[in-house]
């Protein structure tokens, strides 16, 4: 094994230009693979984060007629001890109301939240552009679009009519922007107590919300939750609610894999053709080695080692190049506010896999040239001197 390896090293060293070119070729392939892979993964993560990161990933609601959850503290307690992956558990008390301004009616949703806890899900504090969170009873905040519609200012009073026909007033303490117009237009966020008083629900809530640390296990976690709580409660998870998105992302993943496969094939073909030329270039040497008594297997090992070595060098350089490319991208491809356009996701497992696949394909690409080397008859070389 040592001799064919030594010979392979010498052969590669003796034609440095050729070796350098093919190593660069492999490296470009590997780096493109790493870059595209990280880009698509980063893109998907950012899309998923944008869709689900600042909203509950698992919801519990009641299927009873009044849509109310009694004894919610017991349930919350039970869920919080159920699974370590569940985080940011909080309860809400929601109800629809009609908002009246002059002659206009707006159908809005009053959302009573445990603001400190819910903030971890919705990140409301950081998404308020004016005013402060409601603290006292009958205070509320509204979204950007609703503010524009109502031309509201802090301290203004909102007239609302409940389903029962009762009229109440809420004082505006601030404005938020969740970056989703539909929510900004329809949500009126207030404290849990205010909502409970408003709708006279007593010590009951309408929903339990939570997030999970493993986003893609949300369905599995939701099932566990479901099995531990009364059966008249409905458990929903973001995956079930976003099937369209998931299938879209899936399509994107498939196309990214396709690109990577074709890059890989191109790299493998390049290696195979360079090594095929190498066999021709070195046929004299291989012939004389055979005349001196190396067996065919050893002769083919020389080429396999050449493929392997090219793969190793190409992969290492490719990983470095890929990381460099990603770094440059995240430093220079920026949005106006200085954030990367797409936050790349550098996964070491994925990089290692790319390098390994390139390595394996370089070795496989060397098989055909290796067979030619094995079949080379020394007499042809010697006769045609």
């Amino acid at each position, binding site marked *: 094994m040592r*001799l064919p390896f030594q010979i392979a090293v010498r052969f590669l060293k*003796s034609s440095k230009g050729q070796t350098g070119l093919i190593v660069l070729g492999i490296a470009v392939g590997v780096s493109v693979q790493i870059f595209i892979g990280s880009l698509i993964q980063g893109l998907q993560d950012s899309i998923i984060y944008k869709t689900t990161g600042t909203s509950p990933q698992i919801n519990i609601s009641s299927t009873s007629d009044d849509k109310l959850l009694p004894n919610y503290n017991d349930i919350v307690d039970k869920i919080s001890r159920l699974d370590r992956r569940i985080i940011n558990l909080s309860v809400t008390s929601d109800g629809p109301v009609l908002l009246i301004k002059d002659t206009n009616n707006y159908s809005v949703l009053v959302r009573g939240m445990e603001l400190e806890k819910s903030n971890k899900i919705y990140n409301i504090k950081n998404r308020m552009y004016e005013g402060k969170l409601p603290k006292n009873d009958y205070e509320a905040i509204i979204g950007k679009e609703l503010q524009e519609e109502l031309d509201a200012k802090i301290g203004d009073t909102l007239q609302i009519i409940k389903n029962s026909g009762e009229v109440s007033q809420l004082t505006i303490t601030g404005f938020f922007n969740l970056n989703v117009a539909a929510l900004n237009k329809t949500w009126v966020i207030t404290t849990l107590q205010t909502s409970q008083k408003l709708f006279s629900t007593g010590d009951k809530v309408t929903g339990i919300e939570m997030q999970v640390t493993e986003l893609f296990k949300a369905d599995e976690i939701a099932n566990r939750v479901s099995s531990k709580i009364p059966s008249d409660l409905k458990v929903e998870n973001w995956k079930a609610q976003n099937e369209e998105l998931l299938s879209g992302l899936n399509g994107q993943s498939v196309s990214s894999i396709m690109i990577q496969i074709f890059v890989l094939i191109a790299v493998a073909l390049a290696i195979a053709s360079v090594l095929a030329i190498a066999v021709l270039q070195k046929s004299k*040497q291989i012939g004389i080695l*055979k*005349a001196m*008594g190396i*067996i*065919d297997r050893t002769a083919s090992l020389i080429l396999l080692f050449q493929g392997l070595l090219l793969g190793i060098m190409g992969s290492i350089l490719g990983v470095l190049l890929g990381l460099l490319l990603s770094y440059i991208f995240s430093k220079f491809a920026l949005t106006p506010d200085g954030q990367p356009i797409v936050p790349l996701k550098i996964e070491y497992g994925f990089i290692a896999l790319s390098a390994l696949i390139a390595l394996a394909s370089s070795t496989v690409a060397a098989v055909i040239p290796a067979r030619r080397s094995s079949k080379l008859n020394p*007499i042809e070389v*010697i006769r045609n001197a």
Partner: protein
Amino acid sequence: MPNIITLKNINKVYGTTIKTQVLNNINLSFEEGSFNSIIGASGSGKSTLLNIMGTLDNPTDGEVFIDSKRTDTMNKNELADLRNQTIGFIFQFHYLLPEFTCLENVLMPYQIQSSKLTKDHINRAEELLDLVGLSNVKNNLATNMSGGQQQRTAIARALMNNPKIVLADEPTGNLDSESTENIYQLMRDINKKFNTTFIIITHDKGIAEKADRIVEIIDGKVKMEMELGS
């Protein structure tokens, strides 16, 4: 002395549609320790004959015995092993591996049979290089040596595994007359010192006549065999 190489009824035909008979019923044997030359015009078949003796080429029919082993029925790996252990080759264009140094080229036949390189073997290679007068350039790459130096390296390499036979195809074909004389003298010395059998194809009448025996091949047949007093 027993025969180290015996050829029985060797025929060699090239081509399938247009057949060219290169060797025609050759019967020839060479004694162990002898120094032989083969002469003949271009295309007479002498190189083919040498290649068949070196097991690089197969006869169309006939039997080849090397060191009393029949070789025309051996498989490729057995032949490779036989070549490595028993035969040293010196070709006209020296065929060194240009990627390796002079010393590494000499060590190559040994490294083919065993990848463990011991001090003893390096010493042997260095002694051989000393013998051919190349100690001072032993670490040069093959491409950084003169033609004569490369040819002497090839001789040292051919001797590395202490083979019983050295086959040389016009070893001095592209060297000047002084180098030719040196190389011939060197081969003769080795022949005497190690009792190595030499079979040398040559155009050079001077060299041919200094052999123990001259075999002339004309049109694929042994035309003349001449024993010369040594």
